Every structure is written in structure tokens, then in C-alpha cells.
């Protein structure tokens, strides 16, 4: 569903992403790992068409993101870094706005709203201004916004950041469930999350891919059963 071929992103002299190649199929949940500033968010911004790669090609369902931006954006649900939202709106109005821009009718929206609100557990706050919501709610409204059109592809930048343990558990279950029929990329710092939801882990550091394997294989190679130690070993050594 998503194929990234040799992409490089430079900001002036600084190389944020360096010759990265990876792909995600339907039914896969790719865990995108790496230290801060490794280029995770930059890569996600390029997949979703917000910024263009300096070099290389990104294809979504066989379509080039640069030449078919609108078609690609329709297929993707995106939770940007920090879950930015229109603070002056209520979640319901914000979701309506996103749904209508995505070409859904009012009827389709109502139907989708009912299921998304339950999935992301935001029923209680649906009519409160987003500015007044707690961090956990904001994150889940951001997630709801990404799910509203039931996209085939999900790109989620730190979807569980700022959630309490119960909420984290709930969202991970949700991602697990959706992962069976969608192609999902999530970025995270939390390594237990990789074990919990990801079918594959891709670790990058300084813009370069270091490892791309199933979590179980990772553990086998490094004999070391703790993902935290593996992560430290990999990212500090290179």
C-alpha cells in the first residue's frame, strides 16, 4: 500500500532523511522507531504529502504522492505530530469539517461519527471547545479525525502520547483491530508498544534505516530479550 523508494530530505545542509527505502502492506502495522530527531516525523510528513522529498519516490496504492496528491490524501488518515487541532472548534464540528472536506455527505458523516466517537472514547467531550480539553482527549480527537473516513491507510505520529495507561491499552487494541484490514504506520518512543501492536519494526537513526524486522526476529538476533536494550544498542552504536 505504501512504498517508499530511496527518499532523501534535506533542509538546506541538514539531511533529515537519508536514502530511506521501506514499504507497508495491507494487514501490516509498521512501528517506526528512533531517537528524537531521527527523521520519523519528516518521513511521515512526506508520506502524507505535506512536504516533498528532495529525492526519491513515494507511492500510495501505486500512485505517486507528488503527481497525484489529492487522490493519495483521500486514501490516508493522518494524525500529525502533536495532534494539532482547531482549538476554537468543538470536536463534533471539527470532525464534521474534516468529513465534509473529504467529500462525505451529512448522512455518511453521522454514521461514521457514531462509530468513531465510540472507538476513540470521546463521547463525553464532543460538544466542548477543543481548547478546554485535556491532552489525552485532544490526542484522541486527533485520532478520530484521522479515522472519520475509514481510510485504507493510517499514518499516526505518536498516537498514544499523553494518554494514561488504560487509554493506551484501549488505543493499542483499536490499532490491533484495524491493522488486520488497513496498512498502518505508527511512530513511537515506547518500545512496549512495538511488542503490543506492531507486526514489523523499523528503526531509524540520523535519517538512515538501521533495521527493519519483525519484533520476534529482533529479539532472536540480539538474544537480548529486552527491546529497550536492543534499541539502545542499535541507535547508539551507529
Amino acid at each position, binding site marked *: 500500500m505504501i512504498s517508499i523508494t530511496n527518499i532523501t530530505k534535506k*533542509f538546506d545542509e541538514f539531511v533529515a532523511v537519508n536514502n530511506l527505502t521501506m514499504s507497508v502492506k495491507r494487514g501490516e502495522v509498521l512501528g517506526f522507531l528512533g531517537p528524537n530527531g531521527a527523521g520519523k516525523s519528516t518521513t511521515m*510528513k512526506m508520506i*502524507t*504529502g*505535506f*512536504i*516533498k522529498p528532495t529525492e526519491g519516490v513515494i507511492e500510495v496504492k501505486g500512485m505517486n504522492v507528488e503527481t497525484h496528491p*489529492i*487522490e493519495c*490524501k*483521500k486514501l*490516508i488518515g*493522518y494524525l*500529525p*505530530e*502533536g495532534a*494539532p*487541532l*482547531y*482549538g*476554537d*472548534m468543538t470536536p463534533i*464540528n471539527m470532525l464534521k*469539517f*474534516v468529513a*465534509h*472536506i*473529504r*467529500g462525505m455527505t451529512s448522512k455518511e458523516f453521522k454514521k461514521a461519527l457514531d462509530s468513531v466517537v465510540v472507538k476513540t472514547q470521546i463521547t463525553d467531550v464532543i460538544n466542548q*471547545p477543543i481548547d478546554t480539553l485535556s491532552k489525552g482527549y485532544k490526542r484522541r480527537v486527533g485520532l478520530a*479525525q484521522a479515522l472519520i473516513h475509514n481510510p485504507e491507510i493510517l499514518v499516526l505520529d505518536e498516537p498514544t502520547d499523553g494518554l494514561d495507561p488504560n487509554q493506551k491499552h484501549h488505543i493499542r487494541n483499536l490499532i490491533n483491530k484495524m491493522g488486520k484490514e488497513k496498512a498502518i504506520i505508527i511512530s513511537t518512543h515506547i518500545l512496549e508498544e512495538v511488542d503490543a501492536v506492531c507486526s514489523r519494526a523499523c528503526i531509524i537513526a540520523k535519517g538512515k534505516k538501521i533495521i527493519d524486522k519483525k519484533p520476534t526476529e529482533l529479539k532472536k538476533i540480539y538474544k537480548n530479550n529486552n527491546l529497550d536494550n536492543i534499541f539502545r544498542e542499535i541507535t547508539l552504536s551507529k
Partner: protein
Amino acid sequence: MTVLLNIVKRELASYFSTPLAYVFIVIFLTLIGSFTFYLGNFFARGQADLNAFFTFHPWVYILLIPAVTMRLWAEERKTGTIELLMTLPLTTTQAVIGKFFAAWIFIFIALVLTFPIWITVNYLGQPDNGVILAGYVGSLFMSGAYLSIGSCISAITKNQVIAFVIAATVCFIFTMSGVDIVLNFFKVWAPEFLVNIISSMSFLVHFESITKGVIEIRDFLFYLSVIVFWLFLNVVVVEFKKFN
């Protein structure tokens, strides 16, 4: 079309969800009203027209329109919602035009709310309502030109205060470019055709002829082309800033 409509709706709603809209309308009406009656000598002139009213529109716009446009893009960039907006299936042009129209409709509402002055002048005498209508339409077009400048400049920075100050300055320059103080500065060294171009860019000159009842298509075309030019620049700036 639905995309455009939804952006306009959201932006317009966001004006009215904060006190900004109400503060703006109150100040706009107060300023325009007091200028008309005190500086414009509306009554003492003894004429049944709204010249005293329209004369001050450019000056009020210079001050207030940057306040309407400063948040359009600067806020999106500061809060990061621009990433959300631009990863929805829409083009930058749609977003720029949608935001612009929302601001324009807002100014239209403010202009409509000046209707008591129109009632007053009709009560006191027999004005030429055709000229008054032309004045209103001209003012609306001129406000569109100011708005397009403000919107473009709002896309340059994340800081709304900077957006306000720069937009007000640029609006001022465009307003004044037909006045001798500005022209004399160029007359000394610039060839005549350049001076003519600069003076023909003046918002003031085009607006004055409209309010006097000299209704020429080219004055409206002038404002339209200013709007198209600045909105085009706006699209370029948004695209450019996004990638950097």
C-alpha cells in the same frame, strides 16, 4: 466547490467564536461613525450624499483589516493545524481562496451594519442612491484588495503581531502611492512612466472616483487584479513556507 464552501464556513465560524469579530465590528462602526460626523462634517456640509462617510473607509481599513487577516495563516502555522489542513484532499489554492472569502464576507457584514447612515441621509434629503450603492460596492472591492494583502503577509510569519504591522504598512503604501508626498520622492529620479505606474496603483485614487459617482469598470478591474495578484502570491508563499 464543497471544499471551498466548507473552508469558508469554518473560517467564518472561527471569527465569531472569538470576541475578535464583535470587537472589530464595534470599533469599525464607531470609527467610521465618528470620522463621518466629526472629521467629515456630515451635517455642516449640507449635502445629501455619503462622501463624508466613504472618504474615511481607506483609513479605517488600513488600521482594521490587518487585524482581520493576521490570524488567517499565521495562526495555522503557529498551532501546526496547517499540517492537518494541507494533508486533507484539497489544493493550496482552494485553502487560500476559501480563507480570503471568509474574511471578505466578514467585512461585507460589517459594511452592511453601517446601514443607519444610509437611512439617515435618506431621511434628511434626497441623495442619489445609485452613487451610494456604487460607493458601497467600491468600498467592498477595495476592502478585498486590502484583505488579499493582509492574507498573503499573514502567510509569511508565525507571529500575528508581525503580520499585523507589516500588513498595515504595505496597505498604507498602496493607499498613499497616488499622493504627492510619495510621488515627489519618485519624481526626482524615476522616469515618468514609472511615476505614472506608481500613482495608478493608488487605492485612494481609484476609490475616490467611484465614490464621486464616476463608475468605470477599470476601477473595479483594478481592485480585482490586485486581489488576484496578492492571492496568487499568497499561494506561492504558503507552498514555499511549507517545504522549508
